[in-house]
């Protein structure tokens, strides 16, 4: 069975859960795969640590938790510090490069791709869409899900009236992701 385990980490308010939700929705509704999303559920609030776990597979998923992600997406230094050591050997790190500095916490052999998502979001007009830039970056670098699937998931998940901005943020992240992936291969 083809299975990818993904963890998304950041701060409450950065749109971490929505990022995981869009990946899961893209996989399970628009890409014909199975997906299970688990949110770290606790007394969490805006500004505190927050994470989502998404498993994407081509068959039904049993055990729902992600322990050693194949792909780690992090938007804050705390999330990097907490989750980087867990990335599986041969896995991939996607990180917000203006906020996070890589160090020896990252296991050897993990391929790291950075994106200044917050800056891109600000340039697009709203810092709030950094999670959608990250989602696009994920789609561009990994190629795990089709561009169209993730785009549809973005469009159907964001608040009405914000679709254009979010789709621009998604495309920006996606294109940057394609470039970064091509540059490293």
């Amino acid at each position, binding site marked *: 069975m083809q299975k990818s385990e993904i963890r998304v980490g950041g701060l409450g308010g950065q749109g971490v859960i929505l990022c995981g*939700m869009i990946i*899961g*929705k893209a996989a*399970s*509704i628009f890409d014909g795969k*199975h*997906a*299970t*999303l*688990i*949110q770290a*559920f*606790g*007394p969490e609030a805006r500004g505190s640590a927050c994470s989502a776990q998404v498993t994407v597979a081509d068959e039904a*998923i*049993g*055990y*729902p*938790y992600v322990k050693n992600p194949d792909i780690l997406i992090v938007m804050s230094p705390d999330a990097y510090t907490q989750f980087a050591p867990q990335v599986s050997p041969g896995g991939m790190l996607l990180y917000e490069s203006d906020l996070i500095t890589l160090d020896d916490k990252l296991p050897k052999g993990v391929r790291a791709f950075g994106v200044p998502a917050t800056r891109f979001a600000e340039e697009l007009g709203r810092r709030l869409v950094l999670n959608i830039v990250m989602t696009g970056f994920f789609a561009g670098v990994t190629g795990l899900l089709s561009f169209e699937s993730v785009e549809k998931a973005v469009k159907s998940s964001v608040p009405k009236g914000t679709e254009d901005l979010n789709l621009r943020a998604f495309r920006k992240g996606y294109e940057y992701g394609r470039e970064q992936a091509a540059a490293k291969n």
Partner: protein
Amino acid sequence: MHADPKGVLTGIHFIDGDHAACEGALAAGCRFAAGYPITPSTEVVERFAARIPLVGGMFIQLEDELASSIAIQGAAWGGKKVMTVTSGPGLSLMMEHVGLAAIAEVPCVFVDVQRGGPSTGLPTLPAQADMMQVKWGSHGDYEPIALSPNSPQECFDLMIKAFNLAETYRVPVFFMMDEVVGHMTERVVIPEASEIEVVERKWTAKKPSEYRPYGTDESLVPEMVKAGDGYRIHITGLTHDERGYPAMNAQAQDKLVKRLVNKIRDHRDQLVDVRADGVEGADVIVVSFGITSRVAGAAVEAARRKGIKVGHLRLIITWPFPAKVIRDLALTAKAFVVPELNMGQMALEVERAVSGKAAVLTLPHAGGTVHEPDAILAKIMEAAQ
């Protein structure tokens, strides 16, 4: 009959188990819910409160679980399909009214999104430790029905079944979710209303002068009326006769209580709902339910790769317990493995059914998270020795 399209959100969704359970209830025809919201079940009523004005019906957030569990029974006698939604601490408070639903034969669904206990325990983390409480929690003899979904899709599908069973047998039905299933998000396919079978309440066709509220035929399930239809009825928690009037003597008690338990026991075979995977000829059989069945499934596959002849029996309806199914399997299997997120509850039922004919290895877990698949695998290997 088919579901009312007004309550059916046909389409493909990516929603969590709590939301899917709410949609299942709406599709089943639930038009009244009352509750005192509690983690990890809150999203069920949160969604219901938002959706019900569009569908036509009512949600009341009440002062506590006692009020909630009795308000739904009033609404049931008013003619609605009803549910209340809670977690362990709230369920404990509801137990008195579970007994009333049992003796007054009120069709109602109790949704229990299980979390770690006892008491307030672990509000945000899973357990499966209310299994015996729903079987035995209220005093006296009665037979509840309980179902254990393991995915958001099943939260939708089995919720419809839960309502249908409540109407068919006029008993409290427990919908035994847990925090993981409740908060797990997956694809949920909601079909067209015309593809959803719902059971309508067994309304009487008798005239008021001929109607006996607790008179029954061989189904042992009496016909119902609703308030305002012109029938004079009396509903009580006291032992009652066919007219519904208190009859506090051994004879009436014998007649009523035997009927209350037999209306379920006589239909035990129809109430078996299990998923059997490779149990025929298996040396070891894992018996699981709810979220643990998903983890166990991964362990069963790993054990098969090691060459172990292992089967998996998943309980969908956990009460009444499918004792005969297990008893039959015990004639050929060497051992049963029972993982569950409690300190050994349904394992007692497995032991009772197996009755010494095979080994029963328990794999208790105090809750807070799910089992490690490797722990279940190790137990399967031990059982195969």
